[in-house]
């Protein structure tokens, strides 16, 4: 084989290798996408009820004969110094009976000393009690009266009970405690009222949260285990599955009118509901896809969550305590990601583009060869290093120097504008002299002076109008809450990360655009700036837009800076002085602990998918813009 043939074969091989690599990369991207989508999308499956088996003549399980009492203790009590188990044994005509068991660790001896059991009987003010239950925080009893009253009692060991004033709630026939014992369902004909506890000036009060409207009067309502779902059987042999906090039923099954009435519904392990009929028949129903599924509304719409006193968008996944409603609102996370990227670009874009224009077009090549690698060295800092430095050095100083920073931000453009006004005509008349290699050296002291002056102005204003602490003044007088970890801090750190990316690409685009148009324009007497704007910018614009987009992608995908500096607070505020929580940081925090296949896990993958689509869209836009410019100016940069 001749050398020539050999090389041709090698060339062909190389070409095929490169082609196949790009195909592999595309496949990997598609694979990532499919993996994320297939993990996330089961989240939106529709629940379904179906009949699994029917048995006739089964004895209904015996219900213990304590008169409509709840025999639950105050959940698994946390290892408090003083723990108390509250039990209610019964109630009649406005009097509740029960006992309170306290145990205490005494002194340095850590073995639990069993405390006394105190039994109590409280005469409540209520005319009659239809239902009583303990609540999740222990020590409290919730008392219901069917004529529409609710009363809360606090039982403690020294003085037997403290009763809170009764509050009005909707009239009802029956009460059902929801899992977690933080709220109750009041059954009233074809309506079910969801009542929960809210904190207020006078302590906990019961407030209607939501109303579930049924198609017909409910016969039996039963919790589906601890899953925050309940099943309603109505008079027309229809079963509906409801989710707590969601007014519309999630699934309905029509059993046909021929069957006799329902006596009792029991949750029987994962996915099965046993329905006992009055005539002794047992039907076993399967409920599919109701666990670990959500509606889109849960992710995007503001909700009145159980136990909250207002309608909010918040992110707080599965609680550790049983039966607590998980909160999966994407809005605070998306807002955190976008606002932090916005802060970063606001800070880094003017500087990066200004530097790119100067270094790429005006600066003497000899200087450029020094300054460009120096600036690009910034890109060598990994996000975690920037975050660590910002945490150690910047964070403690930021609150003190907010006024000075604002002064600097104001002073730089003001100085530049004033200089331009003063010197502009001279520069235009004798461009060669001023756009010289000495210009940067001249600008260094002027701009440093401007920075110093800005800082001085800031501290002067701070000292004379805001009592020396702008942040403290804002907090005290304007009610602005200021966090130690905040958007400004994140923005500053992120701008350090995005600055070299934007600078480097934009500078490269400007420097490598063809020189002929600018040279011609200069030769015809245009000023360097005019030549730049008309002769270079059109060619470089696509590259500059691409630089901007890549900077944006970097800011959106950055994880460590946000994880360490944002405070990870899922807030929806415009103030840059408050904490934020980004999608990427949330993924970093929560993915390791989310159980595979749980709704939390799926929601996180949906967030990852969203992040991917966001950066994908940004990159696509960058490509499209680039292509358009190329088309118009016929360059291939």
């Amino acid at each position: 084989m001749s050398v020539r043939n050999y090389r041709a074969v090698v060339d062909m091989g190389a070409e095929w290798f490169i082609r196949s690599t790009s195909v592999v990369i595309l496949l990997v991207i598609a694979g990532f996408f499919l993996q994320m989508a297939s993990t996330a999308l089961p989240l939106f499956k529709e629940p379904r009820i179906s009949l699994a088996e029917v048995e006739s003549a089964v004895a209904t399980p015996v219900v213990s004969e304590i008169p409509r009492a709840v025999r639950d203790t105050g959940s698994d009590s946390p290892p408090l110094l003083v723990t108390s188990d509250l039990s209610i044994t019964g109630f009649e005509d406005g009097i509740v009976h029960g006992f309170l068991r306290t145990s205490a660790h005494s002194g340095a001896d850590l073995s639990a000393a069993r405390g006394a059991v105190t039994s109590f009987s409280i005469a409540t003010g209520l005319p009659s009690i239809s239902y009583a239950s303990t609540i999740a925080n222990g020590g409290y009893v919730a008392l219901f009266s069917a004529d529409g009253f609710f009363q809360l009692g606090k039982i403690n060991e020294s003085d037997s009970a403290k009763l809170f004033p009764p509050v009005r709630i909707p009239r009802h026939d029956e009460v059902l405690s929801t899992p977690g014992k933080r709220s109750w369902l009041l059954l009233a004909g074809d309506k079910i009222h969801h009542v929960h506890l809210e904190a207020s000036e006078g302590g906990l009060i019961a407030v209607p949260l939501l109303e579930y409207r049924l198609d017909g009067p409910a016969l039996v309502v039963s919790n589906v285990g601890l899953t925050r779902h309940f099943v309603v059987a109505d008079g027309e042999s229809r079963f509906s599955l409801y989710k707590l906090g969601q007014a519309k039923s999630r699934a309905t099954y029509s059993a046909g009118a021929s069957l006799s009435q329902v006596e009792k519904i029991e949750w029987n392990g994962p996915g099965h509901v046993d329905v006992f009929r009055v005539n002794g028949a047992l039907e076993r129903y399967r409920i599919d896809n109701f666990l670990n599924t959500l509606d889109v509304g849960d992710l995007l719409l503001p909700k009145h969550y159980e136990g909250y006193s207002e309608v909010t968008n918040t992110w707080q996944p599965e609680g550790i305590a049983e039966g607590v409603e998980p909160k999966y609102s994407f809005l605070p996370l998306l807002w955190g990601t976008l606002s932090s990227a916005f802060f970063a670009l606001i800070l880094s874009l003017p500087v990066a583009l200004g530097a790119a224009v100067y270094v790429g077009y005006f600066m003497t090549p000899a200087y450029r060869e020094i300054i460009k690698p120096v600036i690009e060295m910034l890109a060598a800092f990994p996000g975690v290093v920037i975050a660590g430095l910002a945490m150690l050095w910047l964070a403690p100083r930021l609150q003190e120097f907010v006024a000075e920073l604002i002064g600097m931000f104001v002073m730089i453009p003001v100085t530049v504008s004033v200089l331009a006004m003063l010197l502009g005509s001279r520069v235009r008349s004798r461009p060669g002299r001023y756009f010289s290699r000495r210009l940067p050296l001249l600008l260094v002291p002027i701009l440093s002076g401007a920075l110093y002056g800005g800082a001085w102005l800031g501290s002067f204003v701070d000292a004379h109008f805001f009592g020396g602490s702008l942040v403290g003044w804002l907090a005290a007088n304007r009610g602005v809450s200021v966090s130690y970890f905040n958007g400004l801090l994140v923005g500053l750190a992120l701008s350090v990360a995005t600055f070299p990316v934007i600078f480097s690409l934009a500078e490269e685009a400007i420097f490598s655009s063809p020189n002929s148009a600018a040279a011609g324009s200069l030769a015809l007497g245009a000023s360097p700036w005019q030549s730049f704007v008309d002769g270079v910018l059109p060619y470089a614009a696509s590259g500059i837009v691409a630089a901007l987009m890549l900077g944006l992608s970097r800011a959106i995908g950055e994880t460590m800076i946000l994880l360490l500096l944002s405070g990870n607070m899922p807030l929806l505020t415009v103030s840059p002085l408050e904490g934020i929580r980004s999608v990427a940081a949330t993924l970093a925090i929560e993915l390791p602990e989310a159980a595979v296949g749980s709704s939390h896990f799926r929601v996180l993958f949906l967030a990852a998918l969203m992040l991917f689509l966001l950066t994908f869209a940004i990159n696509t836009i960058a490509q499209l813009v680039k292509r358009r410019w190329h088309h118009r100016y016929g360059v291939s940069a």
Partner: protein
Amino acid sequence: MFRRRLSLLTLQCVFLLAPPATATSEVLTFVGSDTMSRLITAWGEEFRQKFPDVVVDIQVTGSAAAPPALAERVANFGVMSRPFGDGELVDFMRRQGFMPEGMVVARDSLAVIVNHQNPVLSLSLEQLDRIFSQGRLCSGLPSFTHWHQIGSGSLDIEEGGSNRDRPIAPLGRTAVSGSYGFFKNTVLCGGDFHPRVAELPGFAAIVRAVSQDSGAIGYVGSGFVDSSVKAVAIESRIDGLQTKNSSSSASQPSPLKRDLYLYLAVVPGGAGSVAECAFLRFITSTAGREILIEQGFSPGEVEASGVIENVCP
């Protein structure tokens, strides 16, 4: 020619990938809680003095990382500041077919810390609920947002504090942390944290932030409290009697006291490895207990010794 270069390359790769060969070395891998990281590190160092062949590898993320690591058998010990959850047990059973062995090896308390400029000396659990909670199920009262709302005119306030106008900036751990869950269950009655509670990835970060922000308050493992911050006393009720305890010392009772666990996966009827058993015996020895107390924990060896007899016959 070409082929020889290739083989040389592969050889180099093999050399680079192969672990350093020491004949008898065994690696003990610990995965889990940040609270116990300093304790395990201190134990590990002392243990290495006696058993130089054993390499101690500690991976700190949070208690939630321990069960999966143990179930995958990539860790010898799961280090947890809370017991296994039900879901985690089920998951472990499904993968391994038996229950993990767990033991209480130490007890510690969470301390609530504030800045030195903060005049507050003590807080009740109810006040903590009003600071940290969104729903405030424990106290049932409105949120505290500024420091001047707390304890005005009470004895629990030092003279001359300068942060009274500051908004309260609560700090906590991320949800991976066992302390996050413990605080949530104990202080918030299982309710939600307020969205304004910052979630930081480590106790050291909380201590640093609290030492620098006069409005901050945070909860940390008592071993992390140092002179840069002030631990406030937590008030609790025993039989109607108001008592105050400084939660900074583990030897005094505190409402925020909890057990710390080591978990290991041992096949029923089988035994732990030599190194695992040696480590367990070491931490329950006098030397181990001294280190434990030195690090600000109190011993919990009563339960540990029983497990050790089972695991290491």
